[in-house]
């Protein structure tokens, strides 16, 4: 309803009823995502919203780690956002991806650097990009795969991050191929051993616990409690 020509009192100001809701969702998304450039990100947000695409919103709030421009600022959460946005299609247009990258206020150089690891022309397989991103996150192959599991999994947060073994092995091979230190033989043997491990247990899914052994926090706790008990 367009504003009447003459308004006489404040009560005549009409606020569209959907507006508060939209604002609230937007604000929450912004708070959760903590973009460096709010404007850029908002443009991305609303354009995605208008198109009906998945929104560039982090599901969980993550304190931003990027301080300088050199630091990639790429976090698992951001990768997850990108994954949410891009994973429907197998191949992603580079331009599109770049735009999304920008919307998340990530530095462009990093994007280029990432692409240089595995050069390609217009399109890139999304899973490859994701793998590259994960490798950027973590130092070792294992940590990269851990991040990948956590990103790709359907399990809820904190739970055993299961992904299909096929995916896992594919990514592992891909990264191993890129990484010159690891020989293919090792890769295969490692994968074979893992496969044996999980063959009996799960239905073709591999979880974090199978290949990644986090620190045993429980022992620490016990020690601490013992100390306290004394």
């Amino acid at each position, binding site marked *: 309803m367009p504003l009447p020509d003459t308004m006489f009192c*404040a009560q005549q100001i009409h606020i569209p009823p959907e507006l508060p809701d939209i604002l609230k969702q937007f604000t929450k998304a912004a708070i959760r995502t903590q973009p460096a450039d709010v404007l850029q990100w908002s443009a991305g947000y609303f354009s995605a919203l208008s198109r009906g695409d998945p929104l560039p919103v982090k599901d969980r709030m993550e304190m931003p780690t990027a301080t300088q421009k050199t630091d990639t600022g790429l976090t698992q959460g951001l990768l997850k956002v990108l994954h949410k946005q891009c994973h429907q299609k197998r191949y992603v247009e580079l331009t599109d991806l770049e735009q999304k990258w920008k919307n998340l206020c990530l530095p462009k150089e990093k994007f280029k650097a990432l692409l240089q690891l595995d050069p390609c022309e217009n399109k890139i397989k999304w899973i490859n990009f994701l793998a590259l991103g994960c490798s950027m996150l973590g130092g070792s192959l294992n940590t990269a795969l851990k991040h990948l599991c956590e990103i790709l999994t359907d399990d809820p947060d904190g*739970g055993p991050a299961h992904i299909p073994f096929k995916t896992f092995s594919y990514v592992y091979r891909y990264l191993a191929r890129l990484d010159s230190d690891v020989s293919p033989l090792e890769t295969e043997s490692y994968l074979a051993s893992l496969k044996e491990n999980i063959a009996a247990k799960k239905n073709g899914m591999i979880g974090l616990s199978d290949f990644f052994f986090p620190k045993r926090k429980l022992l620490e706790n016990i020690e601490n409690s013992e100390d306290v008990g004394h």
Partner: protein
Amino acid sequence: MTVKPAKAASLARNLAKRRRSYLGGAAGRSQEPEVPCAAVLPGKPGDRNCPEFPPPDRTLGCWATDAAAAAGLCGAGSEPSIAPTSCAGNLPSRPPPLLSPLLASRNPCPWHYLHLCGSHNTLAPTCFKAKLHRKRGSQPPDMASALTDRTSRAPSTYTYTSRPRALPCQRSRYRDSLTQPGEEPMHYGNIMYDRRVIRGNTYALQTGPLLGQPDSLELQRRREARKRALARKQAQEQLRPQTPEAVEGRKHVDVQTELYLEEIADRIIEVDMECQTDAFLDRPPTPLFIPAKTGKDVATQILEGELFDFDLEVKPVLEVLVGKTIEQSLLEVMEEEELANLRASQREYEELRNSERAEVQRLEEQERRHQEEKERRKKQQWEIVHKHNETSQKIAARAFAQRYLADLLPSVFGSLRDSGYFYDPIERDIEIGFLPWLMNEVEKTMEYSMVGRTVLDMLIREVVERRLCMYEHGEDTHQSPEPEDEPGGPGAMTESLEASEFPEQSMSQTRELLLDGDYLQRTTYDRRSSQERKFMEERELLGQDEETAMRKSLGEEELS
């Protein structure tokens, strides 16, 4: 009185009809006489004190009821008479105009349309007095009496009507009261002592004198009383000073002396005004109260933008909107974050726990297996040790046994040998077979010799005896039987001896034995011993005491 009942009835019916029409045109009834209660007596609503005669301007409802009652009563056609109660309650204030034509002919006064001498002659004096309108000359003078007559003549019910009249006051206003006819003395006395007030039940027909034919005595008494009162009054009036009589040829005339002539009339100009509302209309809604306009009208003009500045006005709205939005979203995000964190940590913990539980289970399994293994090993070991022990024990035992039994064998053998279990078969055979035989033979031989000796002794004895006998007898006994026995005996003996394998030894032995003939005891003893030996031998040949037998036989051989 003047009108017959029939006519009265017809008139009543007319009136009733008119009344019905009246009901329809109730509005224009202002000048009409009141609704006639057909059976209602002519009576004046005399006494305003009477509560049963409500003020003149009654609503239609009352009329209607009266009309209905009247109509009903009219329809009945019976002698118009009203139930006293109904009449009393519903009597209109105005006396019903029973016979308007009649009355009209008489006098135009609306008040005087009462047909006092109607057929319905029941006059129930429900009021104090029936005061007649005395101003009207047309009134028959004996109205009161007529009234009373009517009262007396009334058959059943009470009715009473009286004309409205001014309240009489006790003091007369005018000196001259001669013009006033002698009125019935009005005794406004106590209702309780009013004779007209009916005592007792009113629902039962009074067959007494009040309704029925009054007692003539009663009537007379009343008349006389009235006359007396009247006379008294007149006497009083005579005493009062009055204006002197007119002079001859003149006449007293009332004259007005004021400036303006005033018509003096008894008649009070009255105008009937009636008003009627629709039957059973709802109360109309009150009209909207629009207060009267007060004050001054002043006009002013507001140009656009003067009154309302959007930016200014929208500011608080925006503040609220944005502020609240941010606040709310922040809160929500925090909450969600907290919840998600909680859940994540919960799941992490569960994961950890699960993995650790798996680990624990694995360890437990392992431990269990180890335990089992240990147990098994231990058992095995124990068995081995046990066996070892056993074996060593066995060995020791065996060694000991061996040592212990080392002597056993020789001793056993020795004892066995001693017992004679190990025997030289030839020797045995000799011992078993030969020697007994030998001994037997020897015995036999000895026995033979014994026998022989015995026989010999017997012979000798016999011979001796015979010789003795013969000696005693003489010498004629015989020598014949002796030589037969002698050869028999030794012959037997020799035969036996020859039968024996070792004849020489046996011969020698027997000879030796024979030679020892002194020893009878010995021979008997030998015999016995030989018999014994025989028995023994027979036994021991088969029995176990071969040894002893052998020993005995040997011993005996040595003895022998």
